[in-house]
């Protein structure tokens, strides 16, 4: 039984209608919505590309705002052709891989620290009252402001960049987990207790699933933040990675390479979000059919 069938199944079917009619209509409606989204999205993207192309050609900005086709060609060439005159050290895959590793190291370590802490803060008022003022005091410091301190503490290298990513993504993860845990409906908790759940069981069976939508939102926001910060960190404290590539191409006055690097960050960021957060979402929210309480 697929998802639509599961949704439709419990409802009463009026006389004169077969259950299949509802199913069929639900499927058709779903298909219509998907097509509409695809159509509107494509039109939006096409319009943006046309405006981009027009701005580049009409204003004569090919060197400051390269044409989309030129950029696309460069993206494909960068990904497929090994250029002996490539100016940016190792090939693009090495840069992307190093950026990915740093982003993930910062993101995962922040998630491991922030989510449990957020859950504790959300559920235990005493701890929250002690800890939250400190966290709220540090939170307004922008991630980029940590870079000089990170270089001082960890030196020039991966550790500094990873720390900056950690410092940036820690707070959205923590605040979302904390809000999720704090806002669980008492009715849900009481229901869990009525079924005999206590302590760890109550936490894993009731608190954690009820908090998952908030945690997922935190993960989604943080992963985007991790990619934004990795670029800033690598610009200042690294000798490879996509941030380094961006900076070097700026100094070389190669706007095509600059935009290529930006597009690659967008692609990798989107793919990472789909792969990691999407997978977690499927295995939690969709599997457990969790609704925010």
């Amino acid at each position: 039984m697929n998802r639509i069938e599961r949704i439709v199944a419990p409802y009463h079917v009026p006389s004169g209608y077969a259950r299949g009619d509802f199913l069929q209509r639900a499927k058709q409606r779903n298909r219509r919505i998907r097509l509409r989204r695809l159509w509107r999205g494509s039109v939006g993207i096409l319009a943006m590309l046309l405006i981009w192309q027009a701005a580049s050609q009409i204003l004569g900005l090919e060197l400051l705002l390269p044409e989309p086709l030129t950029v696309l060609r460069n993206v494909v060439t960068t990904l497929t052709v090994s250029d002996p005159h490539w100016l940016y050290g190792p090939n693009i895959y090495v840069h992307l891989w190093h950026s990915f590793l740093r982003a993930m190291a910062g993101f995962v370590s922040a998630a491991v620290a922030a989510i449990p802490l957020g859950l504790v803060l959300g559920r235990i008022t005493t701890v929250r009252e002690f800890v939250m003022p400190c966290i709220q005091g540090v939170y307004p410091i922008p991630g980029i402001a940590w870079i000089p301190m990170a270089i001082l503490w960890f030196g020039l290298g991966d550790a500094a960049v990873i720390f900056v990513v950690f410092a940036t993504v820690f707070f959205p993860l923590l605040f979302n987990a904390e809000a999720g845990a704090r806002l669980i409906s008492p009715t849900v908790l009481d229901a869990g207790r009525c079924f005999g759940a206590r302590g760890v069981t109550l936490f894993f069976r009731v608190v954690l699933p009820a908090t998952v939508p908030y945690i997922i939102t935190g993960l989604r926001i943080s992963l985007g933040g991790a990619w934004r910060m990795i670029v800033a960190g690598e610009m200042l404290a690294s000798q490879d990675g996509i941030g380094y590539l961006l900076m070097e191409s700026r100094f070389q006055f190669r706007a095509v390479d600059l935009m290529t690097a930006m597009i690659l960050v967008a692609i990798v960021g989107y793919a990472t979000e789909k792969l990691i957060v999407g997978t977690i979402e499927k295995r939690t929210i969709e599997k457990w059919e969790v609704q925010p309480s």
Partner: protein
Amino acid sequence: MKRRSVLGIPATVTLTALRSARGYAADRIRVGMLKPNIVTVIYWIAVKTNSFVKNGLDVVERPFPSGQTSVGVEEVLRGDIDFCLGATGEVAHVDSRYVEAGKPPPVALFEGGVVGGTFFCLRDNLRGKTLDELRRMKLRIGLSNPSSYHLILFRAFLRTKNLTTDDFQWQFLTIGGTEMLPAMVSHQLDGFMHDALTATLAQRAKAAFVFMSSDRGDMGAQARSLPGTGVYSSRAFMGAHPDVTKRFAQALRDASAAYSATPRPEMVAIMAEWSRVDPAVIDDLYDRFDPRVGMTPQAAQIWWDILGSAMVARGEISPKLKFTDVFDLSYLQPRS
């Protein structure tokens, strides 16, 4: 008719007043430069010795931080500044991109100076090692930016040995000039390539020794007379304001003459104020640093032969780029 003459009198008076006022007012120019940075100190010497005023120029200072060498050329291209004192490599990069696109080069170097200003310093425990020995060591070398003039010069030197930086096990790390010394002291760097000031500071702190210096001729005899700092503007601006450009170049030359004529303690104070370092440090570097401008066709040709060819070989600039695309020395002629 009567009405027209009534309106015409005040209009004529106003226009005459405006014209005469314009005749006495200095031309306002916007000048960008790396600040604080010792290599652009000639600008401050010109301000302090009234060289701009004497040449009828009212200068609006538009500084940008050390290491951000590409900002200057970007601002010139956008028309946000009229002249810029800074790194020279970026001018070639920009002109090359335009030439590659089949367009005329938009920016030109018309003056330059600070010869022999490249210092390659290494940690003291590397003293006595040859370049060949160092080549095989995993060293972290600091640079102010990835397209640093000092790195280009080092690459040009390596070309004479049939080597490239790929033959070295070194990591080139981007770090601001002011942070190089703390990074050396805290063992985050094994060396750096930068200017005379950073080298002097590192030596005074006993954190490094000068392994190579263009001033000593370690990077080739010609590199000693290589201008490291350029003065550039957009060709459109220079074409529209040739007199202003000549007077700006002359003001910098006047400042250079004033540098030679001014007693050392006085000049040390001016340089310390600009670079925001202890006058004692400036006094230490005084003999190894020459901030004067004085571009000649020969010096420009040396720049082109050494740095230009190194950039072409690495693919940074197009082989189609010509000497005259990067330089326009016609504004250095004496004023009539």
